[in-house]
């Protein structure tokens, strides 16, 4: 009884913390405490968090190296913009359409390719990512190489915040469910888990589809914040960027993915002033972090309630 109450209190506390964080930022934006530049970076940060956390489900927890995440982002972005901009639907329809389209793309790509292993899977996903880009480049309805411009800005802070929290919650809960344990077992030992009666392929596809859906969500938010989408934005270099975040944070750590996404966004921003050397510094940081912390910032650890409880207790 006591335990239950405590859990409930913790939950309430967390909700309050999240709500306060939301309100502070919302207030700061409304009052103008956060200038445009920071506003843009907070948006990029949230989008990167969604991308990194969702790819982490595929690359980190399921252990399937995917190099085509930007492709799903593109599918989501384009599908939603067709809904909102071309067909005049409300934003929520755009979001759902984007997620759905990306999820379907994930399913169609996942079912055949997830039979492949390791680098062969990597190259197949990379290939699909590129195919999506080339196809978009050649469809005139969506603007060809010029992409779609003049998209209405609908990605507001509430949408952004809610999407980020939902992404993290869904993926964390998925991992902690029985599905999640099956997914992790696939990573740890595919043959053993198959022998235990786990249908490895379907769990891999499940993780892949969920990851793709959230990548699509990120694409939707991106499109409706930056006014323009073009196929080039979603090339393989973008996919690499996301992989970098996941690995930097720690494969199989959602906390790590979040931290790395924040870190990379701010690094990019902070280096803006050093136009000539920014990419050199960026690449050096990448190499150095990997050499000294090859398992990523968090390894496979998570910051959980327990961690906080320990820190809290430690201080006492």
């Amino acid at each position, binding site marked *: 009884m006591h335990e239950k109450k405590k859990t409930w209190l913790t939950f309430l506390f967390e909700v309050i913390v999240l709500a306060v964080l939301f309100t502070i930022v919302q207030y700061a934006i409304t009052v103008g405490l956060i200038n445009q530049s920071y506003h843009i970076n907070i948006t990029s940060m949230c989008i990167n968090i969604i991308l990194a956390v969702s790819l982490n489900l595929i690359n980190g927890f399921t252990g399937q190296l995917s190099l085509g995440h930007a492709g799903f982002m593109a599918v989501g972005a384009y599908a939603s913009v067709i809904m909102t901009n071309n067909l005049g639907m409300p934003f929520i329809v755009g979001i759902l359409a984007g997620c759905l389209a990306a999820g379907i793309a994930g399913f169609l790509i996942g079912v055949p390719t997830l039979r492949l292993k390791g680098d062969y899977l990597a190259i197949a996903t990379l290939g699909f990512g590129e195919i999506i880009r*080339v196809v978009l480049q050649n469809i005139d309805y969506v603007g060809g190489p010029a992409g779609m411009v003049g998209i209405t800005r609908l990605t507001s802070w509430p949408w952004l915040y809610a999407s980020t929290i939902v992404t993290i919650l869904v993926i964390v809960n998925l991992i902690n469910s029985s599905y999640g344990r099956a997914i992790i077992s696939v990573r740890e030992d595919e043959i053993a888990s198959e022998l235990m009666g786990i249908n490895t392929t379907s769990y891999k596809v499940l993780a892949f589809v969920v990851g793709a859906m959230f990548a699509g969500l990120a694409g939707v938010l991106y499109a409706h914040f930056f006014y323009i989408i073009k196929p080039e934005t979603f090339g393989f270099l973008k996919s690499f960027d996301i992989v970098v975040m996941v690995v930097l944070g720690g*494969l199989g750590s959602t906390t790590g993915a979040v931290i790395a996404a924040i870190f990379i966004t701010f690094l990019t921003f902070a280096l803006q002033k050093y136009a000539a050397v920014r990419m050199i510094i960026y690449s050096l940081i990448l190499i150095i972090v990997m050499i000294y912390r090859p398992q990523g910032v968090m390894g496979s650890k998570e910051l959980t309630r327990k961690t906080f409880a320990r820190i809290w207790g430690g201080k006492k």
Partner: protein
Amino acid sequence: MIEFIQQLVNGLSLGAIYALIALGYTMVYGIIKLINFAHGDVMMVGAYVGFFSITLFGTNILAAMLLAMLFCAIFGVIIEKVAYRPLRNSTRIAALITAIGVSLFLEYITIFILGPAQKVFPSSAFPITEYHIAGISILNKNIFVFISAVVLMLILQYIIKWTKTGKAMRAVSLDMEAAVLMGISVDKTISITFAIGSALAAAAGVMVGVYYNTINPLMGIIPGLKAFVAAVLGGIGIIPGAMVGGFVMGLLETMVSGYGNSLYRDAVAFGVLILILLIKPTGLFGKNTGEKV
């Protein structure tokens, strides 16, 4: 028919270039299972060394190529020592990220020093002769690239199959720990692998310079990617596989542009690639060993 033969010539020349780059890729992969994304950029460095050797020191093309190969061999060994060796016992994906880091570093340090604009490879370095046979035009550079690719592949195959170093390489590739126990210096073997792989990339770089006349700091990205695809296609880690993969890739792209729709060239090329992988998941030459429990 003439057109078809011409397309064949086109495809084989393009394929030879992919094959050249893929050889180094596949070799490094075969030994340490690292997708060395920086391979294309080492090729770029090689092209620049060749370029400066011709323009600054006035060497001929062969000397330029040897110089580039030598420089990149040393350079490759340094990259391996500094960036990849500390990660040898970590996950492969960590090494992959480092490779991406090295790739970005090479690209942007070159841009920083030399600027992003392309440099024109002096055409005097390799005078072009055209042969027109029954409506088919073949250039001496096509033949040159083709023969180089085949010869280098044969040399590589010889090294790996018949020399002591090659045996050491295969041993390291098969089982690193057992190789150590057999008295093989793993560090040395991997260094040699990187030296050879990078030298091959440099040779390819100079050839790309000769072939297309221009070089730029980002020239390694696309050919690097396609060569990687070619290597996977042939069965990554297998030398003749890389060669065949390169030619398949070149022919595929050429035929799509020539008889299909050039707008969808890359999409179709990747699509066929994925199909091949689905039918034969370990590549054309890969042996499906099955997993041990």
